[in-house]
């Protein structure tokens, strides 16, 4: 009884089909090495988008980190994902797609909030915990930022201590400070204000109170500028929270 003579067996044999061409991309990620704002970085991309970005001494080291975290095969990419180089140069994720599967809902909210901070500005850790819906979970928010799978694309470096000290960073605190300076953040000013107990700046022309790194705060001329240690004090003085930097 061979397939040559038996139509049923021939029919069954003809039911074998080639796998669709895109199937490998549903399993394996692809790596590329690209220039970043502070040295080369390695990125791993899946069919959904960029899943992982790290600095590493070698492709092998990056592969080890990736495999330990994602348990997926990692193959070389033919070219970096579309838009990535621009995104790294400008500090805006823009049209780069991200694959953020595997994050806890809280970590996803933390990173989503971090993604809204514009280049050149910073926010305190307490702000991000509040934006993520758990105002008291400041440490948990910091951990979620430290585990950011795609730093630079999600700018977790823009979350700093309320006193203007950069704080921890997945690529080290000195890289964090360098990045922020490169982006034109007013770290020194934030720090100088914090020394005198000022955490918020308000404008008596707009009636709005901001974080000192907010683009609206940086526009206030000295004659119209008022410093506050707390939002409560600013509120008592008649100022409402800025809609851009959302201090409350």
């Amino acid at each position, binding site marked *: 009884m061979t*397939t040559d003579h038996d139509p*049923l*067996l021939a*029919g*069954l*044999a*003809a*039911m*074998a*089909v*080639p*796998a*669709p061409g895109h*199937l*490998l991309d*549903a*399993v*394996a990620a692809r790596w590329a090495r690209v220039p970043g704002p502070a040295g080369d970085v390695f990125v791993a991309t899946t069919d959904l988008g960029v899943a992982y970005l790290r600095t590493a001494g070698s492709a092998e080291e990056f*592969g080890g980190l990736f*495999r330990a975290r994602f*348990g*997926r*095969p*990692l*193959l070389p990419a033919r070219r970096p994902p579309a838009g990535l180089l621009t995104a790294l140069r400008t500090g805006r994720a823009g049209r780069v797609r991200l694959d953020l599967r595997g994050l806890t809902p809280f970590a996803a909210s933390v990173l989503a909030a971090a993604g809204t901070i514009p280049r050149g500005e910073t926010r305190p850790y307490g702000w991000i915990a509040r934006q993520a819906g758990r105002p008291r979970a400041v440490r948990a928010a910091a951990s979620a930022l430290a585990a950011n799978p795609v730093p630079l694309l999600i700018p977790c470096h823009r979350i700093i201590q309320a006193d203007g000290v950069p704080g921890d960073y997945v690529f080290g605190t000195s890289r964090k400070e360098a990045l922020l300076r490169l982006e034109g953040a007013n770290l020194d000013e934030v720090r100088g204000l914090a020394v005198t107990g000022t955490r918020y700046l308000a404008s008596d022309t707009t009636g709005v109170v901001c974080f000192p790194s907010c683009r609206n705060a940086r526009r206030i001329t000295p004659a119209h500028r008022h410093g506050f240690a707390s939002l409560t004090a600013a509120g008592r003085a008649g100022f409402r929270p800025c809609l851009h930097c959302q201090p409350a």
Partner: protein
Amino acid sequence: MDQTANAPDRIAAELAADLDAGFAALFAAYQNVLFSTALRICGRWADAEDLTAAAFLRAFRALSGYDRERIASLRIRPWLLTILLNASRNQVRTAARRPREMLDAELPELEARGASAEAQAERHETSRELAALLGRLPDRQRAAVVLRYVADLPIAEVASVLGCPPGTAKSHVSRGLRRLRELQSDRVFGDDRVLQTEGENPR
């Protein structure tokens, strides 16, 4: 369907040397047999893609924990198909899937083939009908028939994938074939009779 006769040895060597590159070779060598098996077992194209991807991912994760000797001693094809079948059972369980109702799905793969339009249409018809009939087999018989005649595995490998002695595998295959032939001859006499045969409460 195992295009390259020396594939298992070559791939085991590549896996031992470099897991990622070896995996790419493993995928290239076995994607068609896994996908064909998945498609004919679960019946739907999109499910078969998910199932095949999930099986390869499981395989990779398992391989990450294996040492060189264990990889070298693997019988790769039945090992992969065992993972696929386990994954399909989980998928069916978790999604409470009813593969039998889905087997008349479209068969987009046939358009990709180089055959003449007429031969293609004929094969399309045959495949569609056979797919529907396969869906009526009990799970084990369907798996046995698909592994033996769609994936073209020798009985020893079918047995290894099903986790049973070769004699048992053989009887699953032959019972499955017999049932398919019965269903086919029922079809010749029209769908009414098939429905009656299949009906829960024949009057």
